[in-house]
């Protein structure tokens, strides 16, 4: 059975060698994903763990496997047309994507901090390269250098934190650390420092406010499908690690107050700054970058109140909303010239009704209006926050989402109300893109109206979390 696990990773690596050929490497990578997802289905309810908890195949990791498969498949579909337009080379693009997927699978499925660290490095290295892949453009190399320096800086913190966590107990297994954490009476200051540093490193990866400086530039510089990947998959992986760590660590009695209030402050800061700065952005990618920061803030609330069910639901909804929005943006590309400024989007609603409509649906869902899943996701989190009597936090959160409504609608206003600028011609016939748009639309609306079946799976995932 462990063969199957290795097989799914081998598929990913196998893609690399045959994806050197120019044209159809994308399809091969898709086939690879489908095969590995078939294998994960086989695993659903049987909880296996290998390498002494290094690799755990419980429902939790399998659920995230599926989330990654979906988001990566959508990104690959998205990037067929995009690559042709931007003349990026095929071969390595898809192989790096698949390696990045393999890295994320490693991160999510392990209970050992060392392996989480290594998996994190696998997919962040892949991200550094992917960000800089648009060879000609100065911006994308700048995005990649900025992402690289800050990413390396963050992993240095992470490693230093792990050093301290290792110090209090001999092994790097999360549950072993958790026990020594609880029992450790004399060396708890050490554990707190290690835990603090570890969190700092993780917050860098998730781009929560005090550590979010790199996000807008990297999102703007990187090619659009990659930005979609950043905003969705990296965040999901980061939060998966946090869920795993917090679910075992949370009952610590020593730093309870300190950690609680610091997280609380970070959540508030993220939401406020994320939304406010987004107000005055001209470039649509930067707007989405700041909106993803704001969404990270909402997710932080879910972490504070330890309600992981709504957090995972929020992540799923977030994946569909964000990839849909980025899909439309990546559709707006003409011969290696992307349309990114707001003015260029004016009047699109009439010239390309199909694109305009889908973009507005996604933006509405991001803002959190009733019919769409965005509203439901936020509703879950806020209601559970109120239940845990965090009134002030929810008030701030609601205020921030009101602010966010403004800058989302502003884009829609631009699309429909303003007169269109001549000379904006984009290739319309782009079948894979429409498939992506359709899937995302389906996801957003379906989850919005009857999320029952998805919740069922999430409950299974949560229940399996505590076994190991």
């Amino acid at each position: 059975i462990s063969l199957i696990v290795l097989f799914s990773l081998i598929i990913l690596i196998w893609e690399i060698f045959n994806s050197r050929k120019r044209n159809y490497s994308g399809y091969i990578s898709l086939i690879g994903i489908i095969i590995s997802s078939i294998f994960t289905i086989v695993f659903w309810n049987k909880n296996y763990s290998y390498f002494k908890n290094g690799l755990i195949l419980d429902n939790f990791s399998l659920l995230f496997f599926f989330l990654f498969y979906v988001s990566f498949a959508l990104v690959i579909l998205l990037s067929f047309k995009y690559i042709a337009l931007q003349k990026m080379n095929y071969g390595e693009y898809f192989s790096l994507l698949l390696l990045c997927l393999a890295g994320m699978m490693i991160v999510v499925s392990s209970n050992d901090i060392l392996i989480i660290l290594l998996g994190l490095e696998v997919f962040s290295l892949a991200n550094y390269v992917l960000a800089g892949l648009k060879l000609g453009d100065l911006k994308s190399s700048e995005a990649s250098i900025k992402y690289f320096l800050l990413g390396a800086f963050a992993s240095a913190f992470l490693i230093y934190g792990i050093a301290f966590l290792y110090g209090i107990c001999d092994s790097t297994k999360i549950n072993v650390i958790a026990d020594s954490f609880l029992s450790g009476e004399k060396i708890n200051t050490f554990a707190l420092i290690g835990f603090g540093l570890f969190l700092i490193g993780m917050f860098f990866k998730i781009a929560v406010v005090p550590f979010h400086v790199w996000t807008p530039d990297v999102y703007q510089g990187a090619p659009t499908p990659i930005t979609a990947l950043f905003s969705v998959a990296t965040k999901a992986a980061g939060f998966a690690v946090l869920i795993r760590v917090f679910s075992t660590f949370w009952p610590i009695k020593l730093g309870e107050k300190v950690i609680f209030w610091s997280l609380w402050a970070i959540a508030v800061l993220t939401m406020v700054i994320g939304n406010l700065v987004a107000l005055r952005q001209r470039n649509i990618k930067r707007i989405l970058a700041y909106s993803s920061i704001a969404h990270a803030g909402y997710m932080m609330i879910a972490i504070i109140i330890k309600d992981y069910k709504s957090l995972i639901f929020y992540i799923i909804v977030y994946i569909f909303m964000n990839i849909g929005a980025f899909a439309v943006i990546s559709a707006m590309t003409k011969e290696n010239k992307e349309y990114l400024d707001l003015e260029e989007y004016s009047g699109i609603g009439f010239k390309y009704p199909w694109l305009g409509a889908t973009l507005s649906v996604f933006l509405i869902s991001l803002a959190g209006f009733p019919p769409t899943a965005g509203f439901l996701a936020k509703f879950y989190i806020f209601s559970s926050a109120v239940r845990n009597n965090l009134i002030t936090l929810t008030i701030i959160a609601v205020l921030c989402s009101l602010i966010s409504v403004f800058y989302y609608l502003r884009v829609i206003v631009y699309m429909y109300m303003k007169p269109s600028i001549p000379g904006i011609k984009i290739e319309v016939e782009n079948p894979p893109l429409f498939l992506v748009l359709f899937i995302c639309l389906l996801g957003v609306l379906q989850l919005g109206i009857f999320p029952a079946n998805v919740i069922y799976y999430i409950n299974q995932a949560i229940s399996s979390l505590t076994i190991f």
Partner: protein
Amino acid sequence: MYYFLFLILSIMAVGGVIGMILSRNQAYNALFLVLSFASLGGLYALLDAPFIATIQIIIYAGAIIVLFLFVIMIINLKKGLPQERKKWIPYLAIFLGVIFLFQIIYPVISNLIFFKQQKGIIEGSPLNLGSALFSEYLYPFEITSLIIIIALIGAVVLLKRKGAK
């Protein structure tokens, strides 16, 4: 005797890093780095980790910084960079650094006595390191192979010349 050795090595390590901060010319920075990494290797040897010490010196002090020197040679900036940035940034950075340092060092100082030296010797020899590596830590070992693959692909992709520039 150990104290003496420890002090020398730690002074060399910290001195190397401070030298790197102060000097302008990149080549000097790289050489300062060699000094501090080599002395760190010595410290590892002091800590009963001979295998790691040799690896550190060979790989870190040797290969990685030589890589840096290659890149510096390729870029070969003539003069050192003039330091015309805003004046207060370095001082603010130092100030924040000291605060951060204090946060980390304080617990160590406070329960220094706790760290009485455990007796017993651990064998950091290649033998049992290798055996542990392949028995208990097999999975991370595989992941490192993934990391190296990505580094290779990335380096090739980014720098492949598309015909004459």
